């Protein structure tokens, strides 16, 4: 349990105790001081506890651990440890190009104002499918929409390794098309090896996975 969760749990526990005490000592509200106390313990503090709790829940839902807590996602988590640098997510994860504890969310959210909320909404649908629907095989899981280059360019645009690499200048105007999302970074013969969860039985894994 990290410090934030400890502090938040303690704060929530104090608010619970105050709310329950107010509930069973409701006669306190007969005097003006008691009315103020009740307003604080039954309105202000619970609202604050919910707001901080919601913030923590939203924050942790961006963690790799959260995404991989569903069984169907386990192979996607394993694919981050493939010992082959042509595997795009694995090379990003293992070389710290994405923060390891927020690896999924770094590449799989729309970088728009409500992108994370949209992701949560879809996540709720996934939970529904997990318990009440038919769970697809990991290799049959597809993105809702084609992967947007924006998620790559968010970090790579302007980087020397991206702008000057010879393979990005094979065709004139190639980079312009990539920037305009007209040519996918994951086009055939480019960065087209992604999670490939259907072939994980045929690959070797980075040692660190065994150490964990």
């Amino acid at each position: 349990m990290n410090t934030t969760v400890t502090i938040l749990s303690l704060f929530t526990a104090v608010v619970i105790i105050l709310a329950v005490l107010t509930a069973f000592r409701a006669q306190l509200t007969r005097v003006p001081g008691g009315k103020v106390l009740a307003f604080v313990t039954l309105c202000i503090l619970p609202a604050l506890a919910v707001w901080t709790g919601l913030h923590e829940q939203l924050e942790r839902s961006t963690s790799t651990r959260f995404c991989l807590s569903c069984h169907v996602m386990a192979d996607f988590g394993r694919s981050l440890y493939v010992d082959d640098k042509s595997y795009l997510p694995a090379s990003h994860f293992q070389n710290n190009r994405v923060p390891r504890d927020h690896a999924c969310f770094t590449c799989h959210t729309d970088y728009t104002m409500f992108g994370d909320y949209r992701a949560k909404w879809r996540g709720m649908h996934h939970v529904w499918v997990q318990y009440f629907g038919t769970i697809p095989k990991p290799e049959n899981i597809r993105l809702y929409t084609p992967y947007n280059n924006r998620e790559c360019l968010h970090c790579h645009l302007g980087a020397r390794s991206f702008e000057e690499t010879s393979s990005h200048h094979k065709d004139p105007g190639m980079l312009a098309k990539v920037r305009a999302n007209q040519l996918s970074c994951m086009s055939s013969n480019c960065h087209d090896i992604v999670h490939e969860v259907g072939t994980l039985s045929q690959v070797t894994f980075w040692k660190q996975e065994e150490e964990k």
Partner: protein
Amino acid sequence: MTTPRIERRIRWSGILIGLGLTIQMLMLLWIHPLSFMIFLLVGCPMVGIGMLVYLYSLASHAAGESK
């Protein structure tokens, strides 16, 4: 002696808020999408309803006094 209506409502309000926050606190200990859902769909509404019951008790009491 019977408990005034406002105090009964405050009691219900406190109980709902206490239960809702207990659920929220427990869900903080579990990192899973289901925990997020329970937090959002059970804990938050319970606290929200508890707060509304409290505010309603104030409003209805004030309205009763002004009559």
